[in-house]
């Protein structure tokens, strides 16, 4: 799993650069935000079971949506932001899936927007949470694995 964490650190900035032409830098700790947050998640099932989740504040999600959908002066809607983050999470998840034992299936993304909510993927543990920064905006990518018990 450490290998997958390294891959997330490597490929997330590549995806941001390719899709949004934004530079992502590593951040030291997971951001805490007072504003509304958008989260997106894809699930991986099969030989490996877990999820890849992405979370950022609305301002960052709005910027990503405006760039991705070429919205120019129009204000992205909640749906635009959720779609944009869903798409970005899908790309990260697809790359993670390629590193996992076969066969695995990748779900379509789901996304949530709200002011103060928690996301619990049941019977799973957070394997790693990788924070990033883009200027004064921050986000994090998490990898969760279905809980295994030690022998």
């Amino acid at each position, binding site marked *: 799993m450490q290998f997958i964490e390294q891959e997330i650190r490597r490929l997330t900035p590549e995806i941001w650069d390719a899709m949004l032409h934004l530079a992502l830098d590593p951040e030291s700790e997971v951001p805490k935000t007072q504003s509304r947050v958008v989260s997106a998640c894809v699930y991986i099932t099969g030989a490996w*079971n877990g999820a890849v989740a992405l979370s950022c504040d609305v301002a960052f999600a709005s910027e990503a949506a405006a760039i991705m959908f070429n919205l120019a002066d129009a204000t992205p809607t909640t749906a635009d932001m959720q779609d944009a983050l869903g798409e970005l999470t899908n790309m990260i998840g697809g790359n993670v899936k390629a590193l996992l034992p076969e066969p695995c299936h990748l779900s379509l993304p789901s996304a949530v927007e709200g002011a103060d909510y928690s996301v619990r993927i*049941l*019977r799973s543990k957070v394997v790693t949470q990788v924070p990033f920064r883009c200027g004064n905006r921050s986000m994090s990518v998490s990898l969760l694995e*279905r*809980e*295994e*018990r030690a*022998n």
Partner: protein
Amino acid sequence: MNILLVDDSKTMRIIQRKALAALGEITFAEAADGVEAMAVIAAHPAGFDLIVVDWNMPNMNGLELVTKIRETDKKTLLIMATTEAEKQRVIDALKAGVNNYVVKPFTADSLQEKVRQTLAKAKAA
């Protein structure tokens, strides 16, 4: 009576415990998957009268657990809890050695009845 409840959902274990507590004086143990269940069984030398086993669990699923238990224990009563989708697999479970099965979702009454049926049949045998 000693009953072991094996399900990766804590909610389902609470529901099963509440339903079966109505059957009388029962001591419960719980496990969240097959591996944990084997550890709980090993730690209870007196054994269990009944084990209720969920089908879909991480690490060691219900069928694998039943097969493992039956390698050395032909006596303990085993009831498999499964969703409708897996009803076909009940045949595999019966072949592996479960005594009965209950289909999720179930009412408290239906779970109690399945346990009574299983105990009655074992007594008659």
